[in-house]
C-alpha cells in the first residue's frame, strides 16, 4: 500500500517560502489561474538594496559576460559538507563559524608552519578579480572573487626542489559540517594541483566574493579558485596546504574515477560520460552558451599542457 513515508518527501516537495509569500503574483504571472490575484513579486533585481556591487578587475571575460547576481552566487552551491542539494549549503551552513581558523602549510617546503588565518593572509595584498566559473555539471557563472594569489603563499613557504604537486585539505569536523556525517563522499575533501598550475598567476586563494568575506556556503574562510578548471577543483574551507612529490588524491576522482579526473580542465571536446561538455547554461540565461576551451583562459594556460593528451588526462 502506498502511504508515503515522511522521509520520502523532500524539502522541494513543500512549497518554498518565497513561492508561498509570492503565491498571488505567482498565479497571476503564470496566467493560468483566474481573477483577483494581485501582489508584488520578487524579480532578480528586487534585492538591489542588498545586492552588492561587483568589484574587481575582469580576467578573461567575454564581451557579453556579466557578473552573476549575488543571490545566485551565494544561493546555488555544491558544498557536500553542508548537504547535496544546491540550496542546502546556504541553508545548513548558516550557523558555521569560520573563526578562529588555522592554516597549516607543510610538506616539501623550507618554511612550514601553522598560521592563524589573519597572519596567513597579512603579507599579501588582497585583490578583487572577476572570473568565469564553469561547473562540471554544465552550468556556469561569472564571479567577482576577492583573494590572494596562491603563488604568494607558496613562494613564502619555499618549496624544495622535490616538490611537484600541492595538496589541499578541507576542514574535517562533522559537528560543524553536518554533511560529513553521511558517507556520500570520503571525508575530508582533498584536492590537488601540479606545482606549475598552483604557481600560475590566475590561481587564487579566495577570501571573499562581491567585495565581502566569503559566505559560509561559498567555502569560508578560505577556498581555492582555478578558473580554467571545473568548479569542484576549487576546494573550500581549506585547513591544510601540503607540498608533495607525487600526484595527490582528489575526492571526486576517488569517488568516481571514470567520471572525474585529476586535471579536470574545462574542455568542450571531452564529454562527461553522462553529458556533453560542449555547451553550458549560464545561471540566469535561457539559451545555452558554447563552452570555451580552458573556460576562456586558453591563452594564459594552454602552454601548461603542451603535448599532453587531454582526452586521457581529463
Amino acid at each position: 500500500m502506498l502511504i508515503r513515508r515522511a522521509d520520502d518527501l523532500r524539502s522541494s516537495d513543500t512549497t518554498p517560502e518565497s513561492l508561498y509569500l509570492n503565491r498571488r503574483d505567482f498565479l497571476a504571472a503564470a496566467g493560468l489561474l483566474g481573477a483577483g490575484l494581485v501582489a508584488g513579486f520578487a524579480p532578480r533585481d528586487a534585492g538591489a538594496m542588498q545586492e552588492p556591487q561587483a568589484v574587481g578587475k575582469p580576467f578573461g571575460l567575454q564581451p557579453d559576460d556579466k557578473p552573476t547576481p549575488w543571490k545566485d552566487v551565494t544561493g546555488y552551491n555544491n558544498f557536500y559538507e553542508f548537504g547535496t542539494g544546491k540550496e542546502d549549503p546556504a541553508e545548513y551552513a548558516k550557523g558555521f563559524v569560520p573563526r578562529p581558523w588555522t592554516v597549516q602549510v607543510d610538506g616539501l617546503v623550507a618554511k612550514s608552519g601553522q598560521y592563524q588565518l589573519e597572519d596567513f593572509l597579512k603579507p599579501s595584498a588582497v585583490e578583487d578579480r572577476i572570473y568565469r566559473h564553469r561547473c562540471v555539471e554544465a552550468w556556469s557563472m561569472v564571479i567577482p572573487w576577492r583573494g590572494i594569489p596562491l603563488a604568494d603563499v607558496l613562494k613564502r613557504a619555499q618549496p624544495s626542489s622535490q616538490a611537484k604537486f600541492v595538496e589541499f585539505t578541507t576542514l574535517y569536523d562533522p559537528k560543524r559540517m553536518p554533511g560529513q556525517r553521511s558517507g556520500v563522499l570520503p571525508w575530508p575533501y582533498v584536492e590537488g594541483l601540479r606545482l606549475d598550475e598552483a604557481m600560475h598567476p590566475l590561481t587564487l586563494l579566495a577570501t571573499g566574493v562581491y567585495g565581502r568575506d566569503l559566505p559560509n556556503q561559498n567555502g569560508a574562510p578560505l577556498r581555492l579558485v582555478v578558473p580554467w578548471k571545473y568548479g569542484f577543483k576549487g576546494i573550500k574551507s581549506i585547513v591544510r596546504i601540503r607540498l608533495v612529490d607525487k600526484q595527490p588524491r582528489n575526492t571526486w576522482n576517488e569517488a568516481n574515477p571514470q567520471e572525474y579526473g585529476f586535471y579536470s580542465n574545462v574542455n568542450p571536446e571531452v564529454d562527461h560520460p553522462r553529458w556533453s561538455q560542449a555547451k553550458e547554461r549560464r545561471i540566469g540565461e535561457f539559451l545555452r552558451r558554447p563552452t570555451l576551451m580552458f573556460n576562456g583562459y586558453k591563452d594564459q594556460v594552454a602552454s601548461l599542457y603542451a603535448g599532453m593528451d587531454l582526452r586521457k588526462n581529463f
Partner: protein
Amino acid sequence: MDGSTFRTRLRAVREPRGFTPLLAVAACVPAVVAVAAMGSDILRDTRFFGSNPIKHGEHFLGDWTLRFLLLTLAVTPVRQLTGWNWLAKHRRTLGLFAFAYVMLHWLTYALLDVQLDWGDLTKDLAKRPYIMIGMAGLVCMMPLALTSTKGMIRRLGGARWNRLHRLAYVVPVLGTIHFWMSVKKDVTEPLLYALGFAVLFAWRLARRSRRAAAAPA
C-alpha cells in the same frame, strides 16, 4: 464482526462524492506549478525554481512521474487491504497522469534543457545508458497509454490486453534505474523509490504465492 465495522465497510464500498474531479484537479497541480514556475523564472527573472529553473523543473517532473507510477501500482494493494473497490477505475487515470508527466519531463529536457540540439539529443540517446534506459521507460508507456481506452481493451481482448499491460511493471524499474544513474552521488531518493516499488511488487508476489498455496492440488 460488530455492527459499526460492518457499516464502515459498507460505506467504504462506495466512492466518496467528488473524488473523481478532485483527483483530476489534484493530479494537475504539479504540472501547473512546474509550467508556471519555469515560465516565470525564465521570462520574469524570478526564482521559484531556484537559480537553475530548467534543471529544477526537469527533475521535478521526473519525480512526479515516479510518484504517479507509485500511486498507480498502489491502487490494487490498497483496494485489497481496504475493500475500496471503487479505487480500481482510477488506476487508469493515475497511469495516464504518469504518462503525461513523463512526456512533460521529456519535453523539458528536449525543448528547454538541450534546446533541440539534434547532435546532443542523438548522442545522448546513443551513448548515455541512463538516457537510453529512461527513453526505454517512456517508450514502454506509449502502448499502455494508447490502449487504455475501453474500445482498445475490447479490440485486443482481455488476455492480450493484460499481457501487454504487464509492461506497467517494467516501467517503474526502468524509471528508477534511470533516476539512480542520473544522480551524481547521493542516491537517497532513487533508493526510496526503489523501496516503494519493491514493497508494491512484493505484495503482489506474496498474494500470488498465498493463493497458489491455498488452491487445491
